[in-house]
């Protein structure tokens, strides 16, 4: 045979043959060895947002989808998908859509910014709230207040947290309530609250009134005023007023009346 033709034909056949053999092997393997996957897993996965934020407690959307289908996990755990997503998943799973879970947002229960709260030391260690908290209880004079080193901002998958004037603030619109900031805060200041709630007590200090006043201009001094006015929507936890979000709280009068200036709209 013509050497030119051979020198083209042999490599072509060689690589083509390799490719064909691999393709056949893969085809056979796929046919006989493939693990049958529930088609609903793909359908549920399509209904999830695919952000892999891990807010549901599973290792990403794919893991959550298979947990729903194979292990009967709750369909309403995905905060970014919201109630529409939960309904879509319920439809795939052939269930009646459950009561739409109310949208929640994360809220930092501290309003002692740098103009109000006293810092008792100058901290120049690692820029991390847990590290600052571990260093002699933090540089903030208030043992309950936001340290403002932005650990919550760094874990937020949607960049909804900003540190402004020395305390963290969460953008209500952007928050997907994944709960990462709740977990990371060393002082347990971040709480998931209903997005519809308007009035909050932005303080977490359990210290008594005089002690609070010494370290912060906007702390709850435990005067019971709001608890008396708002009925059972605000309960006292020792000397700290706590909003019970299960009850309706409409009385905006208490905002102006609060002597600690820590009841605010948010």
């Amino acid at each position, binding site marked *: 045979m013509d050497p030119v033709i051979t020198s083209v034909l*042999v490599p072509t056949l*060689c690589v083509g043959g*390799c490719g064909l053999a*691999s393709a056949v092997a*893969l085809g056979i393997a796929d046919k006989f060895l*493939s693990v049958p996957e529930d088609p609903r897993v793909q359908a549920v996965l399509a209904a999830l947002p695919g952000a892999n934020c891990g807010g549901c407690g599973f290792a990403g959307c794919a893991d959550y989808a298979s947990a729903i289908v194979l292990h009967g996990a709750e369909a309403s755990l995905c905060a970014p998908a919201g109630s529409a997503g939960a309904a879509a998943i319920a439809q795939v799973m052939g269930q009646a859509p459950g009561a739409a879970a109310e949208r929640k947002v994360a809220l930092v229960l501290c309003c002692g910014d740098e103009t109000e709260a006293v810092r008792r030391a100058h901290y120049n260690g*690692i*820029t991390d709230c847990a590290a600052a908290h571990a260093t002699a209880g933090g540089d903030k004079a208030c043992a309950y207040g936001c340290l403002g080193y932005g650990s919550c901002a760094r874990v937020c998958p949607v960049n909804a947290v900003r540190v402004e004037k020395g305390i963290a603030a969460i953008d209500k619109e952007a928050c997907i309530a994944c709960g990462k900031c709740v977990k990371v805060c060393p002082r347990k200041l971040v709480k998931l609250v209903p997005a519809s709630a308007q009035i909050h007590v932005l303080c977490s200090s359990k210290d008594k009134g005089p002690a609070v006043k010494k370290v912060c201009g906007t702390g709850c001094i435990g005067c019971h005023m709001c608890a008396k006015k708002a009925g059972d929507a605000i309960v006292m936890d020792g000397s700290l007023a706590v909003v019970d979000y299960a009850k309706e709280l409409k009385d905006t009068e208490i905002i102006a009346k609060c002597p600690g200036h820590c009841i605010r709209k948010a």
Partner: protein
Amino acid sequence: MEYVILFVSAILVNNFVLSRFLGICPFLGVSKRMSTALGMSGAVMFVMTIAAAVTWLIQTFLLVPLGLDGFLQTLSFILVIASLVQLIDIVMKRFAPPLHAALGIYLPLITTNCAVLGAAVINMKSGHGFFKSVLFAFAAAIGFALALLIFAGLRERIERADPPRCFKGVAISLITAGLLSLAFMGFSGLVK
């Protein structure tokens, strides 16, 4: 002794990542966390060793007899390694689900990894026999894993440190990689 030297040389002296600069993409890409680095290392060790065996067979029984090893080596090796990884993926999913759960997501990432291909090509260039090829590839993979795990450990700590702002993130990681590579230069001359 010869095998011991080959083994040590592939791990430390001619470390794939830090001396030969192969497999840099996973070195920088999956070294942010120790757990992912461990998974990736396991997958690379697995694939590299098997790929070395298969490519040796292809080279010896197909390419050399046909006189094609000069210019078809890279092409056919990529083809074979890529299909091999897919095949391993399918087989693993069926017969070893726990192993698949641990390594599964890293397997597609290394189908055409330059370290895997590099090990195969270096084997052929040095004229290693079958056993030596497999041993070399395994040692090279251990070297890759060593570099990746050291780097992941460093990066986890750098994450907590406070470098100048302009160096934050990838910049300080690249500098660290360079320093690590310099450190491995210390091994040169240990084995000829």
